[in-house]
């Protein structure tokens, strides 16, 4: 797959907000909003300076359980989030849904230190001519790594903007020569009770499984991510490798993948198995398709107080042709 699609929102250097300015902006927003909260809640004696730091005491490494995150060599970078401010690492690495390590947002960052990401092997099989297993060190050498700044939208109506590092999933999948029977791709997260002692409280069947239609998997936007913010993924964010499907709700972007299978029929997916009415196979971000728990019309960026309007396909309209003629409610 050598088709190069230029990012829809190429960034100009004049658009780049300096780190100092954007840090200050957050502080200002937080102060304004939090003093409003303080007034509302009647505990208004907050010192404005302190409202600022969003989890400022994140471990130096950002990794659950300590240990430095390896720096990655990045061949090229693209900004594909409409010039929006990147969410601070201290937020995107401490507010996670990774139920195998606890079901509250702050638990994975505390508990995922028990995940062993080396050695790590991904098995690829099913409807393909060249099935096989591949180690993470070899995966890292398969393609030049690129950084892509994407919006990331959770079904729970929060969102973030993250510089992911990885390469197109299609480049990876093509190596295994999927056959014409490979209409879908199924993914599986590691499930090891010893490394994931809290997994039994997840409330759904494990291992966590996800899937994409083959054309979705091969779409150039779909990223096989091995890092973020220039370094390897923290465990709580899905180390050592995960999917990033930026136009779908976050739960489609499966973490800590250890198995990939090409299949003929739509594979089962974890959240759909749990509650099919709420979580469909497609799960495309769509402000007009309401969810029983959350209006999907708006979303809140991590670290911000008020909500933004949610964009169709999370602001990636180039994927619309994949769903031509499909009813977005029926195929939610």
């Amino acid at each position, binding site marked *: 797959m050598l088709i190069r699609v230029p990012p829809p929102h190429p960034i100009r250097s004049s658009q780049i907000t300096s780190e100092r300015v954007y840090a200050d902006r957050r502080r200002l927003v937080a102060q304004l*909003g939090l003093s409003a909260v303080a007034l*509302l*809640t009647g505990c208004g004696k907050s010192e404005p300076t302190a409202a600022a730091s969003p989890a400022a005491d994140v471990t130096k490494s950002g990794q659950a359980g300590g240990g430095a995150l390896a720096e990655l060599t990045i061949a090229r970078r693209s900004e594909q989030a409409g010039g929006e401010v990147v969410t601070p690492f201290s937020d995107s690495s401490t*507010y996670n849904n990774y139920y195998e390590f606890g079901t509250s947002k702050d638990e994975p960052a505390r508990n995922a230190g028990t995940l062993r990401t080396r050695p790590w092997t991904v098995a690829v099989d099913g409807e393909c001519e060249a099935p096989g297993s591949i180690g993470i060190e070899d995966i890292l050498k398969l393609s030049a790594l690129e950084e892509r700044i994407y919006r990331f939208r959770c079904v729970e109506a929060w969102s973030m903007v993250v510089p992911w590092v990885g390469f197109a999933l299609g480049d990876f999948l093509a190596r295994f020569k999927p056959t014409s029977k490979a209409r879908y791709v199924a993914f599986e997260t590691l499930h090891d009770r010893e490394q994931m002692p809290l997994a039994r409280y997840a409330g759904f069947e494990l291992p966590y499984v996800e899937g994409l239609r083959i054309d979705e998997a091969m779409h150039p936007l779909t990223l096989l991510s091995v890092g973020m913010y220039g370094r390897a993924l923290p465990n709580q964010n899905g180390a050592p490798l995960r999917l990033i499907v930026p136009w779908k709700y976050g739960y489609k972007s499966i973490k800590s993948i250890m198995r990939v299978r090409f299949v003929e029929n739509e594979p089962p997916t974890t959240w759909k198995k749990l509650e099919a009415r709420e979580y469909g196979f497609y799960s495309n971000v769509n402000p007009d398709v309401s969810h029983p*728990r959350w209006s999907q019309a708006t979303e809140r960026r991590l670290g911000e107080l008020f909500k933004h309007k949610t964009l169709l396909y999370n602001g990636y309209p180039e994927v619309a042709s994949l769903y031509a003629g499909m009813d977005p409610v029926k195929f939610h």
Partner: protein
Amino acid sequence: MKAAAAPASRPQARPATPVLIALRIAFWSLALWPAAELAWRLTHAGLGANPVEFLERYTGLWGLRLLLLTLAMTPLREAFGRIEFVQVRRLLGLWTYAWVCTHFAIYLTFDLEWSPAQLATEVIERTYITMGFAAWLLMLPMAITSTQTWQRRLKRRWKQIHRAIYPAVLLGAVHFLWLVKSDHREPLVYLGIAIVLLVLRMPFRRWWGPAPASPARR
């Protein structure tokens, strides 16, 4: 929010017993604890990556906790035979409502930006919002008629109004349960406590349980 068993009229200016003073201090401290913790977090630790979600969860949880505590007062009075438990119900009930209103105000401000149209949509379309809103609405007349003047004026009607605490606590607990996507352990604990507190009031209890500690009051 006074539950069913309150007397229609109480002698005025009854001297406060040491137990009553102790209970008042304990419950005032407890009701103010969330305010203190929030103030400390705002000035020191911060509210995490999603401050609005944190505040909504935190204030909602405290509203539910205090509501359950309010509901525990009548069984405690029966268990210990101390009328003081009933005498602190109003302060607990009003603090419950204060935290529930804070919870609702944060939601209205940051999620709905005070749009009545959006509120209507959310209340109609999302069952857990319907339940939370209904609980808030049921508690409103209880808060308004919590004074002794209203109590005297309404006579028997007052009791009926204040029985709304029973559906309100169930709605509150289920509001929490239905919000959670998976792993329902925590909301189930709250719902379980609510159900126990309601079952303790059921009339069949008198068939096999001990007689109420202060029979003069019924």
